[in-house]
């Protein structure tokens, strides 16, 4: 190096350092340049004798870089003895900024400390990193927007369902009162139709409210109490048989049915699974509900129907909201039934499984920890 090369080093070695493919410099502990090679001088547009003894390394940095130098670089160098891969912008004599990646080693002891620094220009890396940063900011902005939109939509569903519940309940009550007086056969048919439709609307509203509670809130509410799974299923099926006249809905039960669960939620779960099985199963075949309490740690509740298998592509998303079979649009208006089934299972610490093929039919199984 032209300024204070090492004693004994050959002229070839010094020339090599001077023309090295990276900037090489040496400073005192306060940053004052002691030696600097030609490569660095060329990169920053300054002569060696402008720098050596006159300028400090940090004087060539941007204001932000100088703060970083004081708050990160210096302490790190003092504590670790080395710093590497720090990216700083060096201000060229023409005022432009040259992004560089800088490594440094601290040598010597108190009073005689020297910093040895190697730097290389990193314009492309700088551009690439800036693009990455911009892309990351853009991604995070879009993510926040999408989350806000989804939350708004879900809250909207909750509010609308809640507001719909009162008028629908009024329709149910009024229609039931109608039935107390004598009606003509045509009026009776109409009143029965209104009542059935209104009750179905009420159940759908209930599903929507459960859906928003599960998605926006902290999961479905669930109050487990000691109960018997066989009895809960049996009572639920008795009620359901009225809704599906002409369809067989047998109940098979084995073992000990005692468990801790929210009976109201289990009835809802059985209702959704049976309704699903009735809609998708073959109309001439029974839907069978099996409750099994032979295992010590957990009970199971299975709902089986014969009929076409669920397409394999649909299986992974089956319990997600709004997932429906291809031509089921005449059957239900919104696909929340199975989502709520899974949420009820989760709220009990249990899980849902499904098996489906053309020969054995489709079975949904709840596993419920005892």
């Amino acid at each position: 190096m032209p300024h204070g090369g090492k004693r004994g080093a050959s002229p070839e070695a010094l020339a090599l350092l001077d023309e090295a493919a990276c900037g090489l410099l040496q400073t005192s502990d306060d940053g004052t340049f002691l030696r600097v090679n030609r490569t660095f001088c060329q990169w920053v547009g300054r002569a060696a004798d402008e720098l050596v003894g006159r300028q400090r390394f940090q004087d060539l940095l941007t204001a932000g870089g100088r703060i970083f130098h004081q708050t990160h670089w210096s302490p790190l160098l003092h504590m670790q003895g080395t710093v590497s891969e720090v990216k700083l912008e060096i201000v060229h004599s023409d005022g432009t900024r040259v992004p560089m990646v800088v490594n440094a080693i601290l040598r010597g002891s108190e009073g005689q400390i020297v910093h040895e620094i190697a730097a290389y220009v990193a314009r492309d890396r700088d551009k690439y990193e800036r693009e990455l940063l911009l892309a990351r900011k853009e991604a995070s902005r879009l993510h926040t927007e999408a989350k806000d939109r989804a939350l708004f939509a879900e809250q909207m569903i909750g509010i609308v369902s809640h507001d719909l519940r009162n008028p629908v309940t009024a329709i149910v009550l009024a229609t039931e009162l109608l039935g107390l007086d004598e009606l003509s056969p045509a009026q009776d048919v109409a009143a029965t139709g209104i009542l059935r439709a209104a009750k179905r609307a009420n159940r759908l509203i209930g599903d929507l409210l459960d859906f928003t509670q599960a998605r926006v809130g902290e999961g479905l509410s669930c109050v487990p109490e000691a109960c018997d799974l066989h009895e809960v299923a049996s009572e639920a099926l008795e009620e359901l048989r009225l809704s599906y006249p002409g369809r067989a809905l047998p109940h098979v039960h084995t073992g000990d049915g005692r468990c801790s669960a929210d009976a109201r939620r289990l009835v809802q779960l059985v209702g959704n699974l049976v309704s699903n099985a009735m809609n998708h199963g073959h109309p001439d075949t029974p839907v069978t509900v099996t409750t099994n309490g032979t295992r010590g740690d957990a009970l199971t509740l299975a709902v089986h129907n014969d009929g076409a298998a669920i397409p394999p592509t649909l299986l992974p998303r089956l319990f997600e909201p709004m997932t429906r079979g291809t031509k089921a649009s005449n059957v239900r208006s919104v696909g929340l039934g199975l989502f709520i089934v899974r949420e009820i299972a989760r709220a009990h610490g249990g899980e849902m499984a499904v098996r489906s093929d053309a020969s054995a039919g489709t079975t949904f199984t709840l596993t419920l920890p005892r």
Partner: protein
Amino acid sequence: MSLEKRHNVHVSGGGPATMFFAHGFGCDQSMWRSLAPRYAERYRVVLFDHVGSGRSDLSAYDPAKYDSLQGYADDMLELAHAFAEGPSIFVGHSVSAMIGLLANVKEPEAYAAQIMISPSPCYLDDGDYVGGFSRDDIDSLLETLESNYLGWSSTMAPAIMGAPEQPELGVELTNSFCRTDPDIALQFARVTFLSDVRAEVPKLRATTLIVQCNDDFIAPVKVGEFLHRELPRSTLRIIDNIGHCPHMSAPSATATAIDEFLVEEGLDAPRG
């Protein structure tokens, strides 16, 4: 969660008073390694990391709380209540000097004395007041931080060579530096360099030592003189040092200033 874990507290030594050492922006408690051990021979010494720095519990970082220096000051009071034995002395570097001031203004009996190393109540220039920085400078700092945390966040750890003489130290510091979450670092930088606590300065009742370096780009001597004028009971000591961290680059001179101050204030302790 315990306060010890939240702030990675290390208590050592014993003596007639408790010294709390608070690190500044960009670092952690290891900054005090040249100074704290001297005082642990004569005082009870409490070292800690601010929440969001070093090995503090990052899950305790609440962006709303730490959006002003007062959030940090409230932590200082919690630490004082939990760890002080006898009168307390708060030693704060850089922004922590002002954090200590805010804590002491809120609770005058919390500390008997404040020792401020390279303090500044306001980094931005404002009319006649010379803080040393413009808003553009701070934006350029945030940019520098962002481009460096690209690497700091994950790949920096293996890239830093360990200190050959103290390999275990190298590893430890690398980890604590790298553990700083970039979002937290950016917010701390913003809160630090855009803070203005000048209005609070005259309210401090505790006796104060201001240690300023004669060549400090971040906290110029003028800022030290401003503080000395505004603080009712203060001593200003200018140390011959280039840079912002005299406790690291000039530990002996810094310790001498502190020792003389402690003697003058009747807070001295016998040497072991």
